[in-house]
């Protein structure tokens, strides 16, 4: 139970809340009590002064009866515990409680502390010291006492009664005690209220936090754990439903994605395995069948020879021989199937391959109401490619286009042409190093599907990696360091830190320093080291001149691809089609085009459509493996 993340978090939140609300409530109650007491105190002073001044006349006139009555009347008020006047010696002269009259004030008692804590009693007290809160005994309620000294004044000793002499300073003390019962009750009630409120808040908070945790954490986590169990059991079709947008939702999303890819990979493995066993089976069957067929065929043809002169028999035997030969061809077909994967290159016209491709998707095009706009050049030369693989490429691209268009109809434009292109912007740099021979190609960081060239850039005291576009003359560099536009960058080998910048050479376009990359057999590649500089020169490749390609463009009027996706579409297992896609299509295509020494480019605008451009080299020098582009270092 305590191991559960929800319980742990609820407990933590609960304890924190208890602490915060506890401390807060305590100080609130204390402050509230203080305010109440202070109010009572000022009220008591006022009362004391009022009594004092209202009785002045009685005292001056020495009207003791009226004094008694007044004190009794005041003492009878609700909330007043006692009113008394005692003389300087502590003799209680007047009191609301009749039994106190004539008794002496206990000088040790609470009410006397203020003046009598020192040996010589004080004669004047500041106002704040004249009050005190006390409890007469354990069971009695709290009271707030105010003492008000009655000072001697000329009117007193000049009065006719001559009760007081002139040299006396303090004639007596008026002591008013206000009951704090009501206030205490109020404080008590508000304390209880605070406690109840706190408990309710804590319970409520814990409940809400618990519920939210359950909803937002426990349940999704349980779903994730359940899903991992399912996958562990081999159920790859299990998906986590209804996950939110938060981190756990993203985790669930990526989990779903992962299982999907796993399942696809398993399917592919399974498929591969299936094909392999089917191949083995076919080979086995072919072998096994060929032996008995040998018997039939040799005996049959032997008999046919012997049946010369017997046309009727010969005719029948010819059937046997002919049909056995047919069986031989069928078995041969089985054997060919078992070793289908071996690539076979031959001279083909790409237009024919496109024709066959369109034939395959004819129905799909019709169903989706897609029009084919044919802009193919009928005069393109034949090129040496594996027609099956190239057909796979076109088929994949056309199927992608159909899926991008969806069922709302649209058009796919297919063009083929022969183009001559300068190597600039076409040739892929596949193998470069620093002068010490350290490989600069970074296969883990790809730019449009191609391994990039990684160099270390030093600028303004900072260091970072820059991934240079592997296409000769390309400008799609990725910067891992903030650089000022137009600033010259110090470029180094990430391995040995040697500077790649040439000590003397300057960019012919802007005069900035020039970096030099080494290739094993195609000479150096030079480029402008200014951030934003576009100049690059590869002498040896430029020297080889323009290259001729068959260019096939497949454009659709479909949904288009976002910029973020464009960078990844040639990665294996990258799919934007969710459940439908295998994610292998475009990476396989890229691989096929690459082994043919060609290039594939994609250009897309969301909402407008996508164009894939496939360029296959026209190279008559057959037998030199993939055409020169593939060999370009």
């Amino acid at each position: 139970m305590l191991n559960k993340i929800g319980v742990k978090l609820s407990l933590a939140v609960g304890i924190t809340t208890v602490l915060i609300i506890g401390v807060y409530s305590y100080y609130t109650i204390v402050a509230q009590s203080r305010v109440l007491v202070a109010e009572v105190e000022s009220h008591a002073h006022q009362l004391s002064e009022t009594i004092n001044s209202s009785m002045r006349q009685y005292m001056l006139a020495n009207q003791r009866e009226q004094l008694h009555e007044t004190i009794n009347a005041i003492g009878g008020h609700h909330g007043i515990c006692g009113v008394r006047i005692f003389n300087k010696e502590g003799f209680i002269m007047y009191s609301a409680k009749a039994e106190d009259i004539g008794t002496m004030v206990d000088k040790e008692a609470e009410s006397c502390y203020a003046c009598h804590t020192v040996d010589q009693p004080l004669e004047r007290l500041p106002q704040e010291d004249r009050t005190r809160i006390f409890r007469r005994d354990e069971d009695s309620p709290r009271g707030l006492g105010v003492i008000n000294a009655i000072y001697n004044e000329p009117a007193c000793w000049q009065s006719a009664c001559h009760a007081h002499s002139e040299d006396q300073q303090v004639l007596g003390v008026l002591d008013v005690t206000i009951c704090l019962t009501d206030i205490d009750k109020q404080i008590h009630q508000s304390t209880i209220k605070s406690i109840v409120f706190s408990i309710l808040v804590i319970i409520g908070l814990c409940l809400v936090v618990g519920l939210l945790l359950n909803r937002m954490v426990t349940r999704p986590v349980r779903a994730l754990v359940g899903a991992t169990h399912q996958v562990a059991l081999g159920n790859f079709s299990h998906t986590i439903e209804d996950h939110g947008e938060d981190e756990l939702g993203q985790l669930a999303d990526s989990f779903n994605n992962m299982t999907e890819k796993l399942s696809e990979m398993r399917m592919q493995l399974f498929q591969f395995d299936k094909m392999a066993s089917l191949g083995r089976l076919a080979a086995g069957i072919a072998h096994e069948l060929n032996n008995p067929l040998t018997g039939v065929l040799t005996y049959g043809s032997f008999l046919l020879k012997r049946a010369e002169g017997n046309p009727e028999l010969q005719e029948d035997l010819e059937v046997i021989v002919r049909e056995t030969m047919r069986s031989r061809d069928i078995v041969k077909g089985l054997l060919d199937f078992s070793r289908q994967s071996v690539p076979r290159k031959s001279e083909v016209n790409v237009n024919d391959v496109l024709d066959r491709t369109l034939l395959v998707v004819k129905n799909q095009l019709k169903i989706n109401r897609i029009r084919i706009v044919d802009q193919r050049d009928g005069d393109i030369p034949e090129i040496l490619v594996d027609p099956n693989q190239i057909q796979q490429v076109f088929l994949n691209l056309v199927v992608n286009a159909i899926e991008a268009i969806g069922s709302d109809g649209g058009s796919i434009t297919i063009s083929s042409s022969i183009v001559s292109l300068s190597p600039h912007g076409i040739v892929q740099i596949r193998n470069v190093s620093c002068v010490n021979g350290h490989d600069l190609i970074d296969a883990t960081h790809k730019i449009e599907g191609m391994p990039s060239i990684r160099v270390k850039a030093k600028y303004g005291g900072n260091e970072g990696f820059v991934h240079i576009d592997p296409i000769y003359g390309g400008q799609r560099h990725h910067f891992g360091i903030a650089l000022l536009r137009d600033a010259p960058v110090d470029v180094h080998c990430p391995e040995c830190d040697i500077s790649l910048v040439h000590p003397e050479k300057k960019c012919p376009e802007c005069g900035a320093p020039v970096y030099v990359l080494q290739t094993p057999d195609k000479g150096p590649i030079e480029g402008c080291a200014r951030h934003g500089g576009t100049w690059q020169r590869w002498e040896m490749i430029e020297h080889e001149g323009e290259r001729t390609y068959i260019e096939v463009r497949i454009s659709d009027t479909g949904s288009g691809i976002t910029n973020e996706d464009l960078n990844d579409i040639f990665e294996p297992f990258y799919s934007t089609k969710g459940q439908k896609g295998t994610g292998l299509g475009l990476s396989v295509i890229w691989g096929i085009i690459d082994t043919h020494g060609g290039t594939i480019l994609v250009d897309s605008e969301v909402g407008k459509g996508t164009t894939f451009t496939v360029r296959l080299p026209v190279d008559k020098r057959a037998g030199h493996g993939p055409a020169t582009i593939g060999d370009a270092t």
Partner: protein
Amino acid sequence: MSDRYDILIVDDEPVVIDSVVKVGRAEGYRIDTAHSAMAALEKLSRNRYRMIICDVMMPEMDGFQFMQRLDKSGLETPVIMTTGFSTMQNAVQALLVGAAGFLPKPFTMDELVSRMKRGLKYTELLTGVRAGTVDPDKVFRRCPRRFRRLGNASWALMEDSGVVVLGVVDLFLKTIDDLQGIDLMAMDDTLNQGGVCARLETGDHLVHNLLAPLSGKIIARNEAVLDDIGLVAEDPYGNGWLYQIIPSSLEEELKMLKPGRAG
């Protein structure tokens, strides 16, 4: 006591042995049989054979291992490999390791007879050369060194343009009697290494299949040899060429070919 036979047939399939025995004997050959490569080696140590027809796929020891054992023991008896797993790769492989011929199963009587005749003719030439009665330089023209050949059947010559010329090795022609005509494949057809690329007809109404040394697309064929088959026999490495092709997987396939100088 050593017996002399024309042919030893080695196969683990009784029906194949029976077929070969039936056809061979009808042609008048003395035929011995072995049901395994081990049994064949044992027989070879006792008897003398002019040629061997051996299956590739057999339990314990397969045809290729059998060839190696023959090679080690110094026996130069020509071997014709046969298999039910009759892929072009197997054909090429068999010729590469020194088989005198390849006979894919199932075969017709004519195919078998043509192979037997050629095999025995080959033995005859070989024995003659060894015995000194036949001067190889006079009897047949050796394949020039810059040529590449598939066994002793066909040759290929790479030209600078990237085009490859194909033809028949003279030793193959010498193993067939009375060449009457040739049947070539059509323009633009695709050849496969180890697949049949031409059929040579002889006076005895037999057809001899020539296997292609390389894969590729036919861009030209020598129409002259169709009219005058004598060209092939007269100048097999020159005017007697058969095809010009654009090869499709030259690098890989060249590994399966031997340099010239057959015989």
